[in-house]
């Protein structure tokens, strides 16, 4: 006896055919009650309402679905069994033909049921079925006849409940001479299907994904269709298969067996394809190893009548079950209100069930993390482009940080190799990043509820857009301290909006370059909170760092926040991958402080994102004229109106600030053309000295990327933190040829004990670098640096703190530099120096290519002008004239003016 017969005899209440018949009957009968709530004009909507208000309806729908699957499976088994036992010859030829034809009807009635649920998969299946039919001659007509007009379900519904069903019943009757199964078979099948229907939900797609799957029995076909550009070939193959089945009775016995073997092999092959399609096809037709929850074949049904809505007016416009418990929920911005987008479009889960567990199953409690953003904030109806941009933003990739770190560890030969923080491994450099840096990127998940604060890192969209008001924060605190959080029903929701405050940026940007601190005037110290002196202004951050007040940026003092300058394209990126953060900045000082009228744009001339922002800020009046920044993007908070002073509107308060033009001295000064605004107006820069990095095998470390504790960690020892005048240096842009003077800081004057890392490579030893980093510390002052602060200051020139000694005794001035710090043993330069006095630094000396300290010629020019200031007060007319035209003033020198002597510098 073959396996199928054995199963049939031992485990089943009747033959395969009998169970198929019982299932058919149950399917037909369970379909009748569904006709009442089902609405052909709105199939999906009507099913949604039924699923939330009518537990018996859900049960009948499940019953209808599972009995149909059972009918299909047992019919196939019955067919197989017939062929296996060669009993097909017992069926009369005419009936056999009709039975073969009924295969089409069976699949049609199943497929039409799949389409009639009206979800996204159904709509795609309908298109595919229609297009497949249209590939045969006259197919358009057949397609119309079977499916009806696009978007209209009436004809299909009639065929589903009448044409195909009647045909199947007639054929069945002809075949078995009854439509009544045996009582035992019927009752056992009914019982089994009832249990199944109570436990497992008939599939329906609850939210939008970019996965499209047809009904399970057509997934093999979907795979086959992927291989062929000529779908009609598939139809012909199916037709040939039908013809083969039809003639199988007449094939001579010997070839019949071979034919059946071929059919069996094809069937098993198809089964393999079906499994592949079901389990391994993911988004956008890519391979996947995770079965998406939406395609879990056994989603719990959770039918408990007490949970259901009694009135569908309570369901809200979007008919989501979530509101059964979570209504009212307040606190949203207009665009994110549940009345506009529901709950499930962000939180997923199952909105079509009133059962809590099932509704919350596979729900995302914190949407907006970049690992779920494509399914939540970034779906095609919402913000798909922004997600792509954010994924490429420097705040997500951290490219510069990774590539410079790998370079200084000797693991990369380039400072500028595009890298992603999420793709780092476990080399010494990568582990260094994991231990010390890898949580400040947008891809870091926000795993806990709560507002964005000083200790927050990453969080995808939430990092900038999440805002808690007081009631929401209080409610969250109550929830977190509740003894029964499971029964706690939130009523307040944090808002997701464009109110991006400086606090959002603070967590990450108060580290490394520490712009968030400096901008507010604060400087980090190495003090412990117990060591805070009595004098001076200090404050303690939540992470216990102690800050001292130096001086705030003028823009901060006037109320400006980060996003007043840093526009959306600069922060979220414009889609391009940038190597270093300054490349993604879309704004410059001159965009606001201009002397010539900049490019202007009206509301109709700007991109859609800017338009949307204008609308959200309430600035979408017809007649406004805003500045187009040098990056090409509009600055939506600028207003230029004729001869009036151009104004900047603060996004947070609406206050208007005049945008002042640069002073005359900034524009017309011969010899100072290369100075950038920052090189004069930067008031101070945070600097640190004596940084040493060592791997401590015994330390309790933390892998910030994997978010887990690890044994052993890189440890950073800082020597000294200081708030000093910035060092100046040069940037030569090789593509434009522009040479400009920028502010620098001793960003990487450090030693790394590479040999301390357990996974070290051969020859790894102590490495030392003296790399200065270009920085805009955001400590702008209205008044620029004076002459002395540059021309007589060794720190600015790059020699480090100390004193330049001028020996005036001879006919020429002899210059000598006395450093404040001892020489570093690694390169014999004073600890804080960038260059030796009047010499070149012949090594790579900056964390960026094309950035360098002043060369000896430039140093001489600076110091030369400085020697004038030894005798002449910087306020003297002659010195003012020197700013305008130094060469002219030089030509007027008297014999009393001494020149510096460069030949023998004394070191």
């Amino acid at each position: 006896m073959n396996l199928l017969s054995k199963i049939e005899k031992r485990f089943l209440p009747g033959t395969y055919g009998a169970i198929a018949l019982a299932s058919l009957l149950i399917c037909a009968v369970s379909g009748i009650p569904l006709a009442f709530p089902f609405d052909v004009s709105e199939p999906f909507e009507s099913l949604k309402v039924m699923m939330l208000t009518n537990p018996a309806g859900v049960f009948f729908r499940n019953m209808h679905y599972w009995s149909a699957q059972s009918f299909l499976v047992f019919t196939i088994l019955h067919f197989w069994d017939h062929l296996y036992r060669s009993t097909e010859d017992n069926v009369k030829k005419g009936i056999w033909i009709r039975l073969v034809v009924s295969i089409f009807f069976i699949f049609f009635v199943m497929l039409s049921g799949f389409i009639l649920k009206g979800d996204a998969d159904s709509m795609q299946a309908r298109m595919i079925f229609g297009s497949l039919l249209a590939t045969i001659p006259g197919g358009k007509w057949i397609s119309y006849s079977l499916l009806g007009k696009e978007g209209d379900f009436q004809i299909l519904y009639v065929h589903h409940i009448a044409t195909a069903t009647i045909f199947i019943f007639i054929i069945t009757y002809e075949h078995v001479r009854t439509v009544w199964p045996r009582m035992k078979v019927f009752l056992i099948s009914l019982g089994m299907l009832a249990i199944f229907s109570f436990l497992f939900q008939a599939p329906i797609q609850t939210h939008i994904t970019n996965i499209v799957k047809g009904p399970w029995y057509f997934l093999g076909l979907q795979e086959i269709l992927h291989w062929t550009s000529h779908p009609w070939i598939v139809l012909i193959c199916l037709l040939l298969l039908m013809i083969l089945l039809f003639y199988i009775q007449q094939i001579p016995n010997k070839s019949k067996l071979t034919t059946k073997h071929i059919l069996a092999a094809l069937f098993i092959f198809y089964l393999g394809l079906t499994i592949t399609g079901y389990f391994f096809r993911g988004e956008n037709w890519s391979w996947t190893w995770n079965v998406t929850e939406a395609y879990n074949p056994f989603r719990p049904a959770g039918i408990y009548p007490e949970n259901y809505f009694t009135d569908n007016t309570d369901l809200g416009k979007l008919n989501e079950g979530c509101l059964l418990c979570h209504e009212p929920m307040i606190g949203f911005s207009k665009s994110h209100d549940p009345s506009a987008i529901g709950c499930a479009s962000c939180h997923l889960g199952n909105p079509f069930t009133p059962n809590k567990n099932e509704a919350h199953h596979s729900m995302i409690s914190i949407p907006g993390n970049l690992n779920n953003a494509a399914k939540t904030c970034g779906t095609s109806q919402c913000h798909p482009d922004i997600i792509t941009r954010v994924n490429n933003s420097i705040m997500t990739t951290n490219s510069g940080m990774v590539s410079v770190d790998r370079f200084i560890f000797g693991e990369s030969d380039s400072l500028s190799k595009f890298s992603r923080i999420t793709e780092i491994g476990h080399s010494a450099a990568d582990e260094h990043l994991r231990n010390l840096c890898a949580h400040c990127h947008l891809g870091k998940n926000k795993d806990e509820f709560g507002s964005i604060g000083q200790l927050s890192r990453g969080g995808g969209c939430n990092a900038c857009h999440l805002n808690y008001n007081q009631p929401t924060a209080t409610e969250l605190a109550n929830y977190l301290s509740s003894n029964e959080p499971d029964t706690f029903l939130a009523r307040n929701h944090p808002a997701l909006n464009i109110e991006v405050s400086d606090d959002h940026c603070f967590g990450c940007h108060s580290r490394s370059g520490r712009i968030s601190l400096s901008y507010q005037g604060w400087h980090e110290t190495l003090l412990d909170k117990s060591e805070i002196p009595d004098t001076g202004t200090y404050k303690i951050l939540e992470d216990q760092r102690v800050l001292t007040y130096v001086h705030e940026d003028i823009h901060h003092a006037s109320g400006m926040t980060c996003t007043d300058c840093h526009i959306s394209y600069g922060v979220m990126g414009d889609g391009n991958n940038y190597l270093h953060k300054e490349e993604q900045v879309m704004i410059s000082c001159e965009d606001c402080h201009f002397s010539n009228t900049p490019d202007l744009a009206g509301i109709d001339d700007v991109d859609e994102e800017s338009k949307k922002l204008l609308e959200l800020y309430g600035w979408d009046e017809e007649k406004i004229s805003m500045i187009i920044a040098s990056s090409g993007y509009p600055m939506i908070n600028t207003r230029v109106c004729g001869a009036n002073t151009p104004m900047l509107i603060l996004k947070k308060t609406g206050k208007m600030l005049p945008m002042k033009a640069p002073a005359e001295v900034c524009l017309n000064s011969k010899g100072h053309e290369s100075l950038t605004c920052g090189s004069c107006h930067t008031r101070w820069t945070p600097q640190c000295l004596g940084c040493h990095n060592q791997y401590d095998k015994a330390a309790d470390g933390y892998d910030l990327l994997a978010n887990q504790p690890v044994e052993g960690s890189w440890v950073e020892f800082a020597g000294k933190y200081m708030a000093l005048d910035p060092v100046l240096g040069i940037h030569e842009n090789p593509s434009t040829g522009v040479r400009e003077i920028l502010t620098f800081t001793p960003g990487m004057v450090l030693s790394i004990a590479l040999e301390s890392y357990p996974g070290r490579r051969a020859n790894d030893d102590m490495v030392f670098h003296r790399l200065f980093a270009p920085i805009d510390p955001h400590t702008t002052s209205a008044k620029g640096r004076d002459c002395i602060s540059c021309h007589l200051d060794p720190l600015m020139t790059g020699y480090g703190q100390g004193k330049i000694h001028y020996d005036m005794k001879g006919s020429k001035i002899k210059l000598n530099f006395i450093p404040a710090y001892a020489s570093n043993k690694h390169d014999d330069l004073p600890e804080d120096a960038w260059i030796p006095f009047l010499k070149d630094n012949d090594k790579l000396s900056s964390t960026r290519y094309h950035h360098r300290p002043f060369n000896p010629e430039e140093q001489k020019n600076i110091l030369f002008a400085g020697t004038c200031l030894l005798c002449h007060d910087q306020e003297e007319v002659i010195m003012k004239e020197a700013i305008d035209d130094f060469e002219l003033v030089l030509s007027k020198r008297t014999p009393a003016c001494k020149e510096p002597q460069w030949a023998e510098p004394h070191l």
Partner: protein
Amino acid sequence: MNWRKQHINRKEFLRWAGILALVPFLYFWYSVIRVKSFQDGRKKIEIPLSAIVEGLSFHDQVIINREGNTFLVFSSKCTHLGCNITEKQGGKIICPCHGSQYDYEGNVIKGPATKRLKRLDFLIEEKEKMVVVMR
């Protein structure tokens, strides 16, 4: 058939009735479908300019590639078997049904589709700030 027989039997009646009904039924069906295909003629889709972002955007049955004020408008119907495409990935428009890939100009990069996405006629209504697409 025996013409001289006085009574037609049930089987014969059904056969004749069937044959005779076939002609008007086919004609009826032809008419139904013909009218339906009129109704399915070209459709006008209006998309507000503000909803069309720079680069690629997906709308109801339409994909638009916008560069400033230059628009490329395609049908979002995959030319393989008509699936509605609503997503892009990695610089490509990918059909989720069987994996056809198109570039942002609608050309096929990878099958099974062989034909480019259908370009649609459109006009820009400056005053109403709309793009009107004929589908």
